[in-house]
């Protein structure tokens, strides 16, 4: 079920990127897509009734079901990278604004 939500978010983001002509809105759509993607990655490792993958001495570990820890580690990396690209995108958006005085791609005179 979680996967469907993730795919809807990815599609929503892609739709935004394809249809919007405002620099900030495109960056927002990019973010929505990335959140969907991260949700998808997490959903891959999800196990129903699974517990956090932490080894403890209290339990007999053989009888417990863990969620897959690897996708969670991947998501951490993906989130960091996503934040990096967003920051860079906003910095470029600022440069675009100070050069053209607008965020609308259609109003800029492309040379």
């Amino acid at each position: 079920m979680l996967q469907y939500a993730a795919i809807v978010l990815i599609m929503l983001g892609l739709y935004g990127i394809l249809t919007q002509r405002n620099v900030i809105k495109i960056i927002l759509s990019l973010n929505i897509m990335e959140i969907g993607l991260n949700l998808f990655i997490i959903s891959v490792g999800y196990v129903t009734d699974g517990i956090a993958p932490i080894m403890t001495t209290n339990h007999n570990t053989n009888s417990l079901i863990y969620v897959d820890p690897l996708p969670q580690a991947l998501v951490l990396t993906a989130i960091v990278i996503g934040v990096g690209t967003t920051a860079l995108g906003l910095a470029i958006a600022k440069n675009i604004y100070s050069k053209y005085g607008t965020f609308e791609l259609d109003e800029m005179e492309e040379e």
Partner: protein
Amino acid sequence: MSAVLLIAVPLLAAFISILNKKLAPVLLLLVSLFNIVSIFFYSLGTITIGGFEAPYGISLVLDNYSLIGLIVINIAFFLVLLISYEKVKKVATVLLVALAGLNGLLLTGDLFNLFVFIEVSGIAAYLISTTNKKYVATFNYLVIGTVGSSFYLLGLIILYAMVGTLNMSDMALRISSEGISAANLSLPFLFMFIGLGVEAKLLPFNSWVKGILGNSNKLVGPMIASVYAGTISLVFGRILTSVFVVSDRLGLILTVILLVGIVAGETMAFASTKLREILLYSSIAQASLVIILFLEGITGWAVMMVIANVISKLVLFAIASYTSDELKTDEVDNLKGIFSKNKIIGVAFTIASLSVSGLPLFMGFVVKMNVLTSIFDGEDYLLAAVILLTSIVEGVYFVRVLIKLWYNKEDAKTINYNFVIKYIVSVLAVLLIVFGTYTTVLNDQVETVNEVFEIGGNE
């Protein structure tokens, strides 16, 4: 010493360079030089990171395939730095990160690690391209690049859910041992193909190229068109040869798309009137051709074609971008006769462009001839016909450009090319002739590269 240093030293230097802006360009040159020298001292093999053995931890693979890539890319990177030294000063830190990312792309044996390096080198590429001062083009590049790498990640995760590993050689083993059908693999493969295709300038995903390379200065042009393009092609080769086995039907679809890419690229190049646009469309066609060769399994010669492209695109883009930096125009009609006053530059440009279009005596010819021989052996006449036809088109537009740039001496503009660029482009041009006539080296290298993949992947 272990090959991790190729990635770790530039990254460390990147952090140090933030502290002292004046020292940064010098540090960049030193680190780049260190990388070139140190490559020759590493022993081949798999490097385990953090003590976790191969399928569990991240591993770097240094075999003959990545070794030859590392040598070519690091030397090309250093030469680009020398050519554009005054542009480098502003973005020295970024270039250090880019160097780490590019080396990581070539070395890594882990698919998720590959994604991280794609993003690292990608973000560096966006920042390098801001030196063009065309921010809308950079923004387009950023959006398309990010969407592309997201697609790559999506494909990768689907693959992980199916196979349960991220290590390249382990993935190849499990795919064959668990009998996962080619039809099931085609979805994640296509996602990853799209993701890498964005950076590799393949046809439907390359709308960023015109904005970036069409306005390129002497740093961005050679860096993106030669160094980055070569690296991504080699990454593509690694994935197509040692991870996936593409089914016949999917292979046919991809081949047709890539063939359309070649034809479209050459046609656009033929129709363009600006020097940098001609070169960028030509390099789009070349990129598609290289990927086709990897798909067809002509790995060794595909690697040689990547190297030939790195050398000749470096010469072509360095000269074209330098010229348009000086004259503020790159309409071929406005550049008439510039080579008659700069003979060395002119000869180097001529050699590089003739090598790309595949005239005898130059490296491009040797590569193209051997490629065509293998294709005819495989009885794939359509592909051979397209390559031959596009070579003719290539020859026509390059000769047309060359005639315009050499003749009309009266109203020729004078440009002062500095000593460094003259020296570098002539050495590279001589290299193209050397490899074009003394083919034993190439044959040997092709055999060592082919041996890497014959044993069954990278153990």
